[in-house]
């Protein structure tokens, strides 16, 4: 299907009619988005010219006629945006873990605002005094060292825009039937931010590494002392001790005052409230790696050390729970990412995968970061099934649901939406559009 889509695109490259459909059921050439707005409006409008006759005269709102509010030292969003919030699994902080999911359907671009970044905490959010917090690196090193937040701030800082995704994100998709849930409920345990801090390799240069060290075990200062084993290979590649999130200090729920950041790797490994790194010869087989983040396969065996968050995409608008107000031109918009590198391309279908058109990728397209894709679509008012499918630069393709289930299996009945019955789900998400415009989660 990829090849046929490329053929359609190359037909356009030959310079023919720029705004013709690139795939079935109303998908329009992505280049209609790039500097062809006027032409698009003229050519692709609904054909219903708005009437000017009945328009009321414009008036000033009260806010235009009085002095506004004082400027605060730390500004918060408009009170009219109060509905743009994370959904919580444990608002009363009962003695169990707590999830907060990102509302992707209410956001745009590639950066998740800090207040809306997803979190999972396993013993509440610790109130860490940054002046007393310490990071210790020890074990199979030449010289164990202790760092404070202040000393780390004097090391060379690096920034990296990267997504973080819980290994259990999208777990409701293991259901044998499509759960009627929003993109926030299905895929809200992934977010993307600019993280700034110190490369772990810089600190390991100072401690020295015993050649016997093949792993490190990272541990948090939270009440469960959450602990995960990480290959030294990753530590010396692109791991960092993150101190800042989108330019300000880490949010408390995201690991304040410092966390391990392992770009592209399972969220739980990115140990928050990081206080200790011990270099070791063998993995520690902590509970989170030997039990929780080991995924049962249909034959009864289980994966261990999955680590990688594989190539994935989903459409955020339109998506489940939205309603299209009449036929016409819409922009299909969504997020693609891969723990293995940059997004190479995203294909979009409006007919449940029968035909595909290539989406526009919004710059910048960064390695292991959210990439925003967009696709113009003219809805004719009939049934449609919207899908997106991503490819990464390493050649990995997001699997269809059938391909995924053939390998990983599915549940026998729908799970509770907040449960994590299995992990590392990355296949295609489908949104069905009904003739009345309502958008629902479907399998296609």
């Amino acid at each position: 299907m990829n090849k046929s889509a490329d053929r359609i695109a190359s037909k356009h490259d030959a310079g023919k009619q720029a705004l013709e459909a690139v795939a079935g059921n109303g998908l329009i050439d992505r280049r209609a988005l790039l500097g062809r707005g006027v032409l698009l409006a003229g050519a692709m409008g609904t054909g219903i010219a708005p009437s000017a006759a009945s328009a009321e005269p414009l008036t000033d709102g009260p806010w235009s006629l009085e002095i506004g509010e004082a400027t605060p030292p730390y500004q918060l969003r408009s009170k009219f945006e109060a509905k743009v919030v994370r959904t919580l699994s444990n608002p009363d902080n009962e003695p169990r873990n707590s999830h907060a999911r990102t509302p992707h359907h209410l956001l745009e671009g590639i950066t998740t605002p800090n207040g809306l970044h997803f979190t999972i905490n396993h013993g509440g959010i610790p109130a860490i005094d940054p002046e007393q917090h310490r990071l210790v690196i020890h074990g199979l090193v030449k010289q164990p060292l202790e760092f404070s937040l202040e000393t780390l701030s004097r090391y060379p800082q690096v920034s990296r825009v990267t997504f973080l995704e819980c290994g259990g994100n999208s777990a409701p998709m293991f259901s044998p039937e499509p759960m009627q849930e929003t993109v926030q409920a299905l895929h809200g345990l992934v977010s993307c931010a600019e993280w700034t801090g110190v490369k772990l390799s810089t600190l390991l240069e100072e401690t020295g590494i015993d050649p016997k060290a093949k792993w490190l075990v990272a541990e948090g200062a939270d009440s469960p002392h959450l602990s995960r084993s990480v290959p030294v290979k990753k530590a010396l590649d692109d791991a960092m001790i993150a101190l800042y999130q989108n330019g300000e200090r880490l949010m408390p729920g995201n690991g304040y005052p410092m966390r391990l950041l392992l770009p592209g790797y399972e969220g739980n490994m990115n140990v928050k409230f990081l206080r200790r790194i011990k270099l070791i010869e063998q993995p520690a087989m902590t509970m989170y790696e030997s039990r929780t983040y080991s995924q049962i396969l249909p034959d009864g065996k289980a994966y261990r050390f999955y680590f990688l968050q594989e190539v994935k995409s989903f459409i955020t608008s339109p998506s489940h729970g939205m309603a299209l107000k009449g036929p016409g031109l819409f922009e299909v918009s969504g997020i693609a990412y891969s723990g293995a590198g940059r997004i190479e391309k995203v294909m979009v279908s409006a007919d449940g995968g029968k035909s595909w058109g290539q989406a526009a990728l919004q710059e910048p397209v960064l390695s292991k970061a959210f990439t925003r894709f967009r696709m113009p679509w003219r809805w004719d008012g009939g049934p449609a099934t919207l899908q997106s499918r991503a490819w990464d630069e390493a050649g990995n393709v997001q699997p269809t649901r059938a391909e995924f289930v053939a390998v990983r299996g599915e549940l026998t009945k729908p799970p509770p939406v907040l449960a994590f019955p299995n992990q590392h789900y990355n296949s295609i998400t489908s949104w069905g559009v009904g003739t009345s415009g309502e958008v629902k989660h479907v399998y296609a």
Partner: protein
Amino acid sequence: MFTPRPILVATALLLATTATVSLAETPHLGKPLDEAAIANWDISILPDGTGLPRGSGTPAQGAPIFAEKCSACHGDNAKGGVAAALVDDRKLAGISASQKTIKNFWPYATTVFDFIRRAMPFTAPRSLSDDEVYALTAYILAENKLIDANDTMNAETLPKVKMPNRDNFIIRFPDRI
């Protein structure tokens, strides 16, 4: 046109210095510590038993500690409550994580000790003595019939407990290790 020699030399020196700084020099602000100073934080247990502390415990010693400090969440006799059952005979069936039990899934008994010691009781982590952690570990393993009721768990015996599911795992991406 020619550049006077002293400026050339100065430029070359400056470049050399800059290159050295950017490649090799780091602030060296870490405070050296010895392992003794870290010991109180160093609670990592490896599956071969590395890191297990001195001390010991038996299932009989663990039972009353469990009843007092654990059963409110994990249920009487560890059969489950608001928190997971720790004693469960079910076989692994299907792909749901809800099927995982200590007996049918956990590959290493050392992990039981490690997790109790670092994270339990949920509302008072790190409040148990090492002997109590050994006793609770022994109690849970014995109730699951993974050790005998009279076995003592300590740094020697715990790593030798053979967990039934140990060899049932597949490393997902071996080249990433």
